[in-house]
């Protein structure tokens, strides 16, 4: 309950980097990976990400739970794509190479398989980086990182506040549900959707109303300690950039530039097309 973002406190060069540089790297990297459909490039990103994982001393066992979620999500998404658009590959690549027929409009083509490979590799290329960011960045540093990359400090602080009060709200919700259960409120599978939603709202009403009161008290407490007085603020958890930080940001930049380079000069489109 206390560590919803799965921050794992270890000593490694990746941990020692500031949250800001990791965030910059994450954003550039994910835009780079998102815009390209070149499997060679995506696979290379995956390989680099694995090396970074090694450096950060995060083990697969630490993130097994998150990996399962992601895998399930990835498989589901691929299935849906095939179900809805078995010839999406052909639309993209403009050719038709049949592999085998499943019946009806479901003909498996090389083009479709390549597209699915791309989608799958996209997961592989980005997920490790996101997991790496989540597991090596102290939530305390997150808000100041946002501010450092240009987000208004008040909005950045609201992220920090949200992280601060999530455990409290979670505990409160848990207590409210239990006390209502003791009075006989049950989330039964048998009830109709409408009545299930009404029951749920019954448990939400006390939670939401007490949270609304909380807004008032917290904002008073913050105003009494000068929040919002100046155009900028400093952060207790601020750290100076080191060579590693510049390295991380350069890496992110390199990924994005490479992606743009592949698109404009090598593939002449977002897709690597071996069929023509």
């Amino acid at each position, binding site marked *: 309950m206390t560590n919803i*973002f799965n921050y794992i406190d270890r000593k490694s060069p990746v941990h020692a980097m500031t949250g800001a540089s990791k965030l910059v790297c994450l954003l550039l990297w994910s835009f780079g990976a998102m815009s390209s459909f070149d499997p060679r490039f995506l696979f290379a990103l995956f390989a680099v990400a694995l090396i970074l994982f090694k450096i950060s001393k995060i083990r697969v066992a630490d993130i097994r739970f998150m990996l399962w979620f*992601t895998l399930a999500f990835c498989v589901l998404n691929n299935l849906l794509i095939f179900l809805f658009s078995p010839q999406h590959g052909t639309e993209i690549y403009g050719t038709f190479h049949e592999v085998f027929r499943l019946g009806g409009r479901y003909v498996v083509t090389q083009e479709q398989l390549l597209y699915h490979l791309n989608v799958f590799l996209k997961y592989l290329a980005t997920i490790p980086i996101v997991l790496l960011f989540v597991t090596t960045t102290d939530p305390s540093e997150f808000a100041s990182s946002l501010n450092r990359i240009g987000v208004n400090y008040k909005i950045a602080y609201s992220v*920090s506040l949200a*992280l601060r009060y999530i455990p409290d709200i979670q505990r409160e919700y848990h207590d409210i549900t239990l006390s209502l259960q003791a009075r006989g409120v049950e989330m039964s599978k048998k009830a109709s959707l409408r009545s299930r939603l009404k029951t749920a709202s019954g448990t939400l009403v006390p939670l939401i109303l007490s949270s*609304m009161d909380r807004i008032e008290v917290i904002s008073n407490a913050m105003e009494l300690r000068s929040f919002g007085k100046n155009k900028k603020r400093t952060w207790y958890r601020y750290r100076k950039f080191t060579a590693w930080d510049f390295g991380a940001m350069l890496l992110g930049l390199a990924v994005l530039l490479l992606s743009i380079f592949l698109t404009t000069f090598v593939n002449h489109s977002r897709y690597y097309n071996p069929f023509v």
Partner: protein
Amino acid sequence: MKNTPVKSIVAIAIGAALFFVLGRFVAIPSPVPNTNISVQYGLLALLGAAFGPFVALLAGFIGYALIDFSYGWGIWWSWVIASAVCGFVMGISKNSVKLATEKFDRKRIVTFNVYQIIAHLLAWVVVAPILDIVMYAEPWNKVFLQGFVAALANIVTTAIVGTILCAAYSAAKPKKDSLEKK
């Protein structure tokens, strides 16, 4: 109590925290197996009606991004942005619903729901699919159907949960009511 700028910031934070907790831990089984109903949009609608578009936009954005972060499956920018758009449109209802000062009567319930329906349609049937196509090159029929199903489920959820929450919130704010002891 005045609506100071600091109060808006805290409302974004608590709104995002609630959005996260509801989206991540409140499981209401839906008729479709393995899918849960997103009650958090009921909250977002209340937040919009009470605090306006700016607060609901950011709460929807931050809350959705935090959920994505905590699952670790990457950030689906298309849906995060759609969630923010949804909050923004819901927030426009603030001036006509007037939750803090007026009674939440039939007319205002209708207005509130018109806004939430437009918000969900715009977010999930227009913004999310288009971004999915542009960013991830997904097939259009898949993303539009996904968006349509999401919009429909969210509209129903918000119509029930959001309306109940608004009624409770409005009742909790003192109004010029004439109360008589029995």
